[in-house]
Structure formats: structure tokens, C-alpha cells
């Protein structure tokens, strides 16, 4: 039996891979990736980058106190405008909120909260949903019936309604929001994953593993889960955006991350009336941050959808 000269093949393969890599790089959605990378960096480095603390008011100078309150000493100066407007200063470049805290620092720490909540929440949802979807699809019969009926019932609950309902079960807190997102969104995954697994189950490599006497759990872990990852990834990237919005909406309605933590949605809710007073920067900056994050997540999701899952392309 002749050995096929796979070595030559592999040099070619390396060149091909490099070319493919370049093409992929060129086709990557650069703008959303850059925005996401920037936000992620800010989130991770917030304590280092932020010029001021997230909770404490910025200590004002004598002149500022005199200008605002006509006394030489005051605890803080609230509602300072951004640096380019009259009365603004470079020390607090995006102004201060009504408690005299630096808007920029809070936005930076807010990126942290938004990303943590959205990513971990979606991750947990993905994990639960994928697992249940695989179980339903692969174990079949009662597993399938029970899990899918629950999924169906779950899906009929509008997500925000459900999130609000859940959030009033427990006291608000960051990790509760994560839990809520996980509990709300898993059903999206389980439905999609189940369909995928139903198809996979009929593939030969799964049958082969069964005939080989490989345990069901091993099959699920080694064969099924890796193969539904594409679908899960696409869903994940699209859900992250939704999760950010839900988190912001929950916080805005007072059901989310409690103050004084600087969640963007909460910052907007707290300064909701400031917009009317002309202090637009307290409302527009967090709003823009949310929009930017969700927009880039959505763009990335769209791109992934086209590239990872041709079946989903037209949906």
C-alpha cells in the first residue's frame, strides 16, 4: 500500500491557510470589532484608566465652590458640563452628574457592568439552553417532550416582562441580573440547538459512536456539543446585544443593578429629568455608549450569521 505524500499536501495547505487567513482578516467586520475591543479594554482597565472613583464625588477646588455656591468650601460640584461647554473643565471631561461624580469615570466602570452582565448572562443562558437542547434532541422521548414543552411555554413569555417578573422575586443586584438574563434567554438556544441535534443524531459519526459503545454523556460532550457550537455562537452574538438592552431597560425601570453602581441604564434613569433641564450630557453619553455597544454586537452577530451559518442567513 503506497503512502500518500501528505507532506507536500501540507505545505500547500499552509499556503492555502495563510491565504484564507488573509481573506478572513480582510472580510472581518473591523469597525465593530474595534469598538468592542475598545470597550472591553476600558472595562478591564477601568480602575486604572478612570480619572476619578466611580462612587465618590470629585473634590472641587476653591474657585469652583466659589463660582457655584459662593462659599470657599463645598463637598462637591454637581452637574458640571463637559469640558468644551462654558463652566466645564478638563479634569472632568464629560462633566459631573447630580451627585458631583465624574461622568467619564462612571461610564468606564459602567462598561464593566454592561459587559459582565451581558456576557456572563448570555453565556449562562447559552450553556443552559445548549445543554437542554442537546438533551431534548438526543435523548428524545420524554426528555424531548418535557424540555420542549417547557421551552415553548418559556418562549411565550415576552423577555422583558419575564425579566421584570424575575427581578421582583429577588432583591436587585448585579449577579441577580445575570441570573435573570440566563433564566430568560436559555429557551432561545434550546429550541435552535434541539433542531440541530435532531439532524446531527442521524449523522453516521454519532451512530458510529453509539455502536462503539460510547456512553451517551460522552457522545453529547464530544460529538454533539462541539458540532452545535456554530449555531450557538451566532445566537450568542445576537443575544448579547439584546441582553445589554434588557439590562439597561431593567436598570432604567428600577429593577436592575442597584445604585450607586454605574450601570448605563441606571445612570440614564437617575438623570432622566436632567435632560429636561438641558443637562443633555448625563443622558446622551450613557445612551450613546449603550447604542455603540449593542450596535457593534449586532453588526458582529450579523457577520457571524452570514459566515458561520448559511441556514440562518435569510432569517
Amino acid at each position, binding site marked *: 500500500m503506497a503512502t500518500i505524500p501528505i507532506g507536500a499536501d501540507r505545505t500547500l495547505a499552509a499556503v492555502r491557510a495563510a491565504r484564507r487567513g488573509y481573506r478572513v482578516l480582510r472580510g472581518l467586520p473591523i469597525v465593530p470589532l474595534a469598538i468592542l475591543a475598545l470597550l472591553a479594554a476600558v472595562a478591564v482597565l477601568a480602575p486604572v484608566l478612570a480619572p476619578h472613583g466611580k462612587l465618590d464625588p470629585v473634590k472641587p477646588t476653591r474657585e469652583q465652590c466659589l463660582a457655584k455656591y459662593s462659599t470657599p468650601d463645598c463637598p462637591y460640584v454637581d452637574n458640571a458640563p463637559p469640558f468644551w461647554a462654558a463652566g466645564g473643565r478638563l479634569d472632568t471631561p464629560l462633566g459631573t452628574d447630580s451627585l458631583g461624580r465624574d461622568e467619564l469615570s462612571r461610564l468606564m466602570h459602567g462598561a464593566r457592568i454592561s459587559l459582565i452582565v451581558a456576557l456572563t448572562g448570555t453565556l449562562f443562558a447559552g450553556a443552559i439552553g445548549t445543554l437542554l437542547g442537546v438533551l431534548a434532541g438526543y435523548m428524545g422521548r420524554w426528555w424531548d417532550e418535557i424540555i420542549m414543552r417547557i421551552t415553548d411555554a418559556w418562549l411565550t413569555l415576552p423577555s422583558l416582562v419575564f425579566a*421584570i417578573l424575575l427581578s*421582583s*422575586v429577588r432583591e436587585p443586584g448585579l449577579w441577580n441580573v445575570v441570573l435573570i438574563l440566563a433564566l430568560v434567554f436559555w429557551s432561545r438556544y434550546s429550541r435552535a440547538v434541539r433542531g440541530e441535534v435532531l439532524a446531527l443524531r442521524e449523522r453516521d459519526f454519532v451512530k458510529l459512536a453509539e455502536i462503539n459503545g460510547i456512553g451517551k454523556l460522552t457522545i453529547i460532550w464530544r460529538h454533539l456539543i462541539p458540532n452545535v457550537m456554530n449555531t450557538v455562537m451566532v445566537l450568542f452574538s445576537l443575544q448579547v446585544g439584546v441582553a445589554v438592552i434588557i439590562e439597561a431597560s431593567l436598570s*432604567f425601570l428600577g429593577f436592575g443593578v442597584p445604585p450607586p453602581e454605574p450601570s448605563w441604564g441606571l445612570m440614564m434613569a437617575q438623570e432622566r429629568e436632567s435632560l429636561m433641564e438641558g443637562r443633555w450630557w448625563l443622558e446622551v453619553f450613557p445612551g450613546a455608549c449603550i447604542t455603540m455597544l449593542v450596535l457593534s454586537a*449586532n*453588526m458582529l452577530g450579523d457577520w457571524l450569521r452570514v459566515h458561520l451559518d448559511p441556514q440562518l*442567513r435569510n*432569517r
Partner: protein
Amino acid sequence: MKRYVLVRALYSVVTLWLLVTIIFGLVRLTGDPVAMKAEAGADPAYVAQLRHSWGLDQPLHRQYLGFVSRLLRGDFGHSFEKSLPVRDIYFERLPNSLKLGFAAFLFSLALGVPFGMLSALKVNSWWDSAGKMVALLGLSMPGFFVGLVLIIIFGIQLGWLPVLGKGPSAVVLGEPSTWITFWFRDWAHLVMPAFALGWYFSGAMLRITRSGMLDVLGSDYIKLVRLKGVPESVVVAKHALKNSLIPVLTFAGLNLLVMVNVAIVIEVIFNWPGVGQLLYDALSNRDFPMVQGVVLMSGLLIVVLNFTIDVLYGYVDPRIRLSR
């Protein structure tokens, strides 16, 4: 076919029952509504009487059985907070939600369909990107942000549009004439909330239109029409659009319901007395029957719609009947 419909119906019933159970359980985990209503310092006898009149002194399984059996008779119970039957309050609010949802739907069509067509006709062009961007932006801006900005600009600064609620016209159940006038009056109140809500959905509309158009434009049928020498504008307007609007319209019913359901934030911001605001109020007051009623009604609508779609698809495509 009969068996298929039966099975689907059974599934729907099971789904509804699960929904009922989930809601019942969840709502009861949210805390004690009596404490809310009685405040601190209420006399214990009154609290006990309140608890009794709301049926909260019974063991949980009795409450559950009572709840389910009343539901089967179409009785959603009395609102704790609003002291009237849940059903009456819900149906008083539903027209408001439908009006908002319908207007928002029109907005999403007006924004989504033309942009969707343009981007399908000129794939990867400037129009395509711009349309996608507008749609994605709508998906990415939180509703409360859009709402607040609209209120400030058009309500306060320019003073063009009213900002409070739906205006004086309302549906009066006993007077059918009000049902019609309700739809045509106070449209100025509708503009901002409908836009804020509709923008969010225009993205989905755009996508469906675009992919529908692309499918149709690529089909043999259109190629044939083109070969016959029909002018391109006619091809698009008459043949392609007509066919690609079918998925848009089938999607519409579902979308309208979804809109009614997701409108909470918009309704709260614009003080729109719809079902969403009702639910928000009920949740903030631990008004168990109201929460149960509203969520069940919205769930019921979705389940019924899903069932209808399943059955219709079953008629159209026999393979679906066999697959499950």
C-alpha cells in the same frame, strides 16, 4: 391531518398549562402583596381580612387549584391594586395597546419595506449599507433613549406633539361608536411612541423584505418574466414585490403581538395606558391577579397564533405533518 391538528392542539394546551403554572409560581415568589397595600402599622385584623378576601390565607395548592378552575371558567380574578375584575381592566387597556402596536407596525413597514426593497435591488450598494444601518440602529438604541430624546425635542423644545398618554378618546365597551372614533382621533399623541416602537421593529421588517425580495428576484419565475421583456420597474413593482410581501405579511400578525408585549418601556416613558404599562404597574405593586392575567392573555395570544401558523403550514406542506 386530523391527528396532526389534534397533536398540535394538545401541545398548545400543555404549553398554556405550563405557562399558567410558571406564572403562578413566579408571581407568588415575588413577595407579599398584603404588606404593600396595608403599609406599616395597619391593624392585624384588617390585614388578615385582606389576606382572606384575596384568598392568600389558603395553602398554595388550594390557591393553585382555585386559580386554574376559575381560569377555565374565564375568570381571571380581581385585581388587588385596582379592585376590579382583571378581565375588565385588561380589555379596557387592550385597545390602547393595539392602537399603539398597529401604528408602530405601520411605521416599521414604512421604514422597513422601502429600505428592504432598495437594499435587495442594490445589494452591497450604498443604499444597502444605509438601510442596514438605519435598521440596526433602531435595534440597538434602547427604547427609553429614543423616547426621551423625542419627548425633549418634539414635546418640550418644539412643542409640536403632546407627551402625555393617548389623549381623551377611549373605547367605551357599551358604546360601539367610540370603538371607531377611538382609532381616528388623537393621532398626534400616537406619533412619538409609535415611531419609537416602530423603529425597533423596522430592522426585522427590512430583513424579511430584503431576503424575500432576493429569493423572488433569484427565482426562475422572475427570470422568465424578465426574458419575456417586461420592463424592470414592472418586474419589481408587480411581480417581485407582490411575492416578497407574503412573508412580510405572515410575519405581521406575530410582530404585532410581539409589539404589544415589548412596548412596556415605551408605554412607561410616554405614559401610554396600554397593557405594558398595566403590567408594569401590576408588577410594581405585586398585584398577583393582574400580573397573571396580563401575562396569560399575552401568552394565550401567542400560543393561539403559533397553533394557527402550525396548522396552516401543516396544510401547505404535508412533510411537516409527518415530521413530528
